[in-house]
């Protein structure tokens, strides 16, 4: 596992992404964790401006971005001070010695220069004047100092690609594409990349610094690509739209971290029937989707916790008028602005419970970046089949993290075509399908089905406005029964790892999948007893979930929040589930899960 760290303007995310691509192409399984500050360009040299990109890769299946670093690239003292504690005591440390000036050391809080005071003696340290070597490499291209220094990240990438025996070709091609309009910049970056690589090959390195060789991971045969949660959601929505037989998707959104990349990704896919709309605010975004759904297309909106809060009244309207909608919540640390670029799972209560009145809707969550594809398709299926808004929970760490994905064959994907109502005879807008309890999707433009809907309570039998007390009771029950009935149309809960009964179930949801899975694996290898259960369907729960959990003596619920799923499980099944909660804005470490299991043996 390695991490690239530097100033937020040093290009660490790009460096990490390219290393990821080369690693994927080398056939390793991998998992990434980008960690960047909220400031676009924080003051240089400061600890709060440190941006980092971490990747774990290996020849066995990799489900998390890792606990302890094998190698750290620190472009300045601030990056070193923030990240050093995660580096293994005998790990490889690469630093740009030119950045360790007195000024930068002071900003990072160092009293003495750690490169010379012996405090880093246990590490395999490679202190190189990356700045000067980069300047020399790009000299032929006659760049200004500023542009020349911006190539430092490529030099460092070149060195690391050498260290791990990776190819550079994909990065060279990427540079040519990215700087197609400024070929000398592309050439300078390529030169820096090659110079870093050549430095590794030719320089006389300290005897304890060497190269690593990581064999390809054994994976199922097929065609693969690297995919981020963002891309997987975007493509899953398109696949869902196609499976539902819908011609158009209106994706309305308001910019918010970390949800905006879904908007950016879909904005480039107009030819696939996607119409993106940047609304004036979060409320307008959800309302435009409601209007779009009313008019017969797929409506999707996307935001993060604070934005979802603003959409809440609109969701109530979609629930009341029973219109299909997909709502994506890329969770971040909160409340309020909180830590917008850090991950958290703290919107589960908001998703399941956070509306006025009795207003249920289905909630599902993606476990990994590639899982986002399937979950997005499933959200479209549930929304259109049950005429309901569906909340899809993902989070900051999944949205930006990449992993290898075996690309599905589009023609083999499931189909769930929508049946629009066209028959006027016997029609009213709240006539329920006997199987799904869903009302008909009757779209403006259809002759003979002219009708009025709205937020006012409506009569069960006619769909007209009704203030009748018994009717409101009946309609509330009908809306609840419709959503609860979805439990009969989703898979039974399975056990991801371990026995289906025993002393301890470790129950998670969302992006903690990798850490919990590896933690349970570690425990099993140690001869301890534990099972991993991961819940995709959070409302309604799979119909066997209660019975499954009761087969375990203890239920441990790790969550990146202050205890939400644990309370829902206790309330639903009256079981003494206990929480394992971490609210640091960072993913769980495998060791944290493994230790919690060990304590409960």
């Amino acid at each position, binding site marked *: 596992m390695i991490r690239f760290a530097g100033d937020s303007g040093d290009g660490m995310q790009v460096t990490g992404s390219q290393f990821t691509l080369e690693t994927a192409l080398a056939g390793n399984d991998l998992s990434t964790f980008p960690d960047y500050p909220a400031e676009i360009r924080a003051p240089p040299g400061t600890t709060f401006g440190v941006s980092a990109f971490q990747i774990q890769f290996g020849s066995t299946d990799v489900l998390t971005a890792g606990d302890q670093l094998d190698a750290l690239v620190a472009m300045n003292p601030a990056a070193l001070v923030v990240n050093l504690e995660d580096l293994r005591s005998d790990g490889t440390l690469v630093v740009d010695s030119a950045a360790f000036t007195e000024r930068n050391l002071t900003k990072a809080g160092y009293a003495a220069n750690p490169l010379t005071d012996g405090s880093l003696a246990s590490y395999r340290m490679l202190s190189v004047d990356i700045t000067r070597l980069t300047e020399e490499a790009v000299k032929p291209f006659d760049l200004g100092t500023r542009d020349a220094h911006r190539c430092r990240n490529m030099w460092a990438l070149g060195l690391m690609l050498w260290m791990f025996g990776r190819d550079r070709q994909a990065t060279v091609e990427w540079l040519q594409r990215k700087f197609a309009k400024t070929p000398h910049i592309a050439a300078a970056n390529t030169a820096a990349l090659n110079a870093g690589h050549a430095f590794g090959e030719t320089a006389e390195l300290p005897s304890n610094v060497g190269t690593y060789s990581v064999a390809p991971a054994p994976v199922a045969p097929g065609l693969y690509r690297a995919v981020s949660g963002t891309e997987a959601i975007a493509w899953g929505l398109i696949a869902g739209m196609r499976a539902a037989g819908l011609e158009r998707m209106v994706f309305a959104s308001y910019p918010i971290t970390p949800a905006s990349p879904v908007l950016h990704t879909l904005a480039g896919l107009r030819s696939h029937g996607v119409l993106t709309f940047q609304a004036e605010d979060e409320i307008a975004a959800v309302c435009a989707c409601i209007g779009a759904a009313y008019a017969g297309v797929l409506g999707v909106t996307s935001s993060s916790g604070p934005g979802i809060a603003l959409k809440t009244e609109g969701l109530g309207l979609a629930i009341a008028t029973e219109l299909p909608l997909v709502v994506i919540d890329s969770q971040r640390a909160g409340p309020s602005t909180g830590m917008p670029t850090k991950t958290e799972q703290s919107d589960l209560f908001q998703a399941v419970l956070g509306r006025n009145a009795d207003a249920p809707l289905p909630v599902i969550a993606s476990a990994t970046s590639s899982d986002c594809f399937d979950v997005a398709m499933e959200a479209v299926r549930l929304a259109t089949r049950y005429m309901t808004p569906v909340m899809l929970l993902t989070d900051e760490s999944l949205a930006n993290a990449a992993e290898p994905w075996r690309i599905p064959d589009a023609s083999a994907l499931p189909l769930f075509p929508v049946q629009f109502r066209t028959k006027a005879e016997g029609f009213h807008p709240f006539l329920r399908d006997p199987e799904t309890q869903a009302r008909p999707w009757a779209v403006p433009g259809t002759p003979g089905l*002219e009708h009025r809907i709205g937020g006012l309570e409506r009569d069960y039998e006619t769909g007209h406005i009704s203030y009748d007390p018994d009717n409101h009771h009946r309609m509330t029950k009908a809306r609840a029964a419709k959503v609860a009935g979805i439990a009969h149309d989703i898979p039974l809960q399975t056990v991801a790892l371990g026995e289906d009964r025993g002393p301890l179930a470790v129950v998670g949801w969302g992006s903690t999948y990798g850490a919990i899975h590896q933690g349970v694996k570690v425990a099993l290898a140690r001869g301890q007893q534990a099972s991993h259960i991961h819940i995709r369907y959070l409302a309604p729960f799979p119909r066997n979930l209660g019975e499954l959990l009761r087969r375990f003596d203890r239920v441990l619920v790790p969550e990146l929040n202050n205890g939400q799923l644990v309370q829902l499980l206790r309330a639903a099944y009256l079981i003494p589930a206990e929480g394992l909660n971490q609210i640091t804005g960072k993913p769980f470490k495998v060791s944290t899960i493994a230790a919690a299991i060990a304590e409960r043996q």
Partner: protein
Amino acid sequence: MTATLSPSLAPKDFASDQEVRWCPGCGDYAILKAVQKTLADLGVRREKTVFISGIGCSSRFPYYVSTYGFHTIHGRAPAIATGVKLANPNLDVWLVTGDGDGLSIGGNHLLHVLRRNVDLQILLFNNEIYGLTKGQYSPTSRPGTKSPSTPGGSLDNPVSPCAFALGAGARFVARGIDTQQPRLVETLKRAHAHRGASFIEIFQNCVVYNDGVFDDFIEKSVAPEKQIHVQHGQPLRFGAAGRYGLRLVPGRLELEVVTVGENGVSENDLLVHDETNHALASLIAGLRPPQFPMAIGVLFCNPAPSYDALVEEQLQAAGSDRDLNALLRRGRTWSVAG
């Protein structure tokens, strides 16, 4: 259901089967009649027509029209209507709102739907009061309005709906009066013919909470001298037999009322209404009794491409490439052999 396809529908064919539940004597009844007559005169198809509203007395409107209708949430109708047009630009969408719904809680959405120029007819019923919540002052109430929430009189300055619309970049801005049915129907037809967002402020009398609030220009005895019905290309004349007119004060960007035939003033001295002139529209939109007449009719009409039409153009230009397999395989891929 064959009536839907019939080419000639009468105004009554645009009435729904729902009992109208506004207070007896409410101005909304007259507006409903005018709209139903407009729809019949235009020969629109019921299935292609959608009425969308927010919350408030005016927003009950869709329940009483036999087309498609959506009574949504407070202030958000412009956003929902935008979504409808993005989904299906061929639908003919009318938006019904009020002074509180459109300019208080929904002011932001009204601003953006106007500047985007989404192809809608936007009817803002202005009664200068909150009716449905029982009589609080509204953002168009005049200063000093006494209401349950302002027993000492309201303090804040009102917003002028037409000035707001012009400021937001609306390309069609008009005014009408609930009780002047023939004129209102003509204005509604103009709004319908306009491609893009058409904004119409309709003065609507609330008999229960604000009765007679517009009497300073609507009451019969003052109406001729306190209303000016503007028409493109015609001199700005009003009063009995067109006795008065509006002209620019020489050397100033300011209007004054003059009497035609007095002090050497002839019709040639009067301003001629040019509905494509934004500056003139802003001037006449700002006129207020008692010093000036209230301007009624089409104040501004200067079409520009609608947002939904531009969106469709971009979609057309992007072409149709529905190859999902190609999309998923775009960029770097690698094969793992079995």
